[in-house]
């Protein structure tokens, strides 16, 4: 039977990958399944013909001291990706449609020549298995718009002079919570959009989990806790399921924590609902600041958003790589609706390297002007 798409999970408590596993796998554990040895194989089903597909892999590497995993992935004998797996974010790659079989199995092989044994690389470890990747999830899905072969540099646009325009520009974006910096920048320009993640910080894994589950249980009281940090009176919230840390803007010495918890549970539920409404209506350009090693990480995030709307838009922001410092202040289009912006490394006392307000404005204005030109 041919498939349109496949979503495989490898955790013991929800694994559906077993029918497709070939050689090179250990037993499933809670949260993941380790590869075994130097290569691991998945025998995927035939897929209905499509112009293109996306393969998304979420795993984390076994990188003991002195070892860094490098993975080469082949599909039906052709290499489609060679990369150093990051620790948490999923990575996606475009796969040409003519590489995918519709009349027989699709052989996906992960070559990981740096597999290592904990017993040989970590003092006191007794685990003698040869580990390389802890696989969490793998998606294979149609992809109508692959990454551009040569990313397009967008014409640079200056920041608006009119404060009302600057406010409207800031309101066009919705933060996806690398930290609260963009939310504060929106406030700097008078924009106060509602956002579940606007004043929040969460790791890619929590974000991916939230996007896959519509942040299920985000209002569960038993997952919420509050604490103050050094030199601050503010109570900060934490949601354990998503490792979501966020500002409450409530001071510890003025707040009944039980009352706050009840209110926050309702507030988070409400904001999650709005977040997905905005996503499903394509009302905002979603934005994430982070360290994106490869365009594949941005593509994986974009595909998660596009599960909610076929034209969902994403701007990821990062510092330019050392070999391309001239990209600072510029935005490139990786594929329609997916943008990557680069900012100068302004040292912020709280956030570390972070764009200055006007730089935010310029990057956001560049994306919005480009989209208007395309419309």
């Amino acid at each position, binding site marked *: 039977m041919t498939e349109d798409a496949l979503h495989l999970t490898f955790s013991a408590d929800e694994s559906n990958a077993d029918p497709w596993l070939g050689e090179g796998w250990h037993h499933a554990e809670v949260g993941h399944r380790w590869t075994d040895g130097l290569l691991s194989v998945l025998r995927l089903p035939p897929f209905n013909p499509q112009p293109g597909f996306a393969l998304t892999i979420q795993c984390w590497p076994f990188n003991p001291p002195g070892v860094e995993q490098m993975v080469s992935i082949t599909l039906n004998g052709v290499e489609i990706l060679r990369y150093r797996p990051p620790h948490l974010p999923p990575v996606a790659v475009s796969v040409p449609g003519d590489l995918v079989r519709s009349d027989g199995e699709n052989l996906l092989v992960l070559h990981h020549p740096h597999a290592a044994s904990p017993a040989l690389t970590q003092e006191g470890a007794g685990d003698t298995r040869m580990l390389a990747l802890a696989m969490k999830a793998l998606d294979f899905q149609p992809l109508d718009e692959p990454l551009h072969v040569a990313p397009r540099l967008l014409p640079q646009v200056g920041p608006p002079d009119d404060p009302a325009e600057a406010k409207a520009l800031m309101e066009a974006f919705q933060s996806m919570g690398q930290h609260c910096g963009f939310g504060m920048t929106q406030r700097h320009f008078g924009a106060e*959009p*509602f956002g579940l993640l606007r004043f929040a910080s969460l790791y890619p894994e929590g974000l991916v989990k939230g996007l896959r589950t519509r942040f299920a249980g985000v209002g569960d009281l038993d997952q919420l806790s509050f604490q103050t940090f050094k030199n601050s009176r503010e109570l900060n919230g934490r949601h354990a399921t998503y490792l979501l840390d966020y500002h409450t*803007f409530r001071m510890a010495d003025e707040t009944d924590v039980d009352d706050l918890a009840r209110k926050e549970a309702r507030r988070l539920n*409400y*904001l999650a609902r709005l977040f997905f*409404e905005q996503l499903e*209506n394509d009302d905002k350009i979603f934005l994430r600041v982070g360290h994106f090693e490869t365009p594949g990480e941005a593509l994986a995030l974009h595909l998660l958003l596009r599960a909610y709307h076929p034209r969902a838009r994403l701007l990821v922001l990062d510092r330019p790589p050392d070999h391309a410092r001239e990209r600072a202040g510029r935005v490139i289009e990786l594929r329609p609706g997916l943008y990557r912006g680069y900012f100068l490394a302004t040292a912020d006392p709280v956030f570390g390297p972070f764009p200055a307000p006007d730089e935010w404005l310029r990057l956001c204005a560049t994306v919005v002007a480009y989209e208007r030109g395309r419309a």
Partner: protein
Amino acid sequence: MTTPSARVLAELTDLLRDIFVSPDLALTRETCAADVRGWDSMKQIEINIAVEERYGIRLTSREVDAMRSVGDLIDLIERKTK
């Protein structure tokens, strides 16, 4: 006789007095966030949730974004509770 708008305005005034812990708070249709001390985006979320619970309605993201004054909120409530 009290009009539906006046009734909703009175109910909203009670609701916002509780939220702002301000028994003297007075609202008109023209009142907007800038007119009330402490009415920021966090408070607006509290208000939206309280309105949804009080009237058993759902305010969409677009409706919430378009609201500029108490009058807009009253109109929305009236439309949704008809």
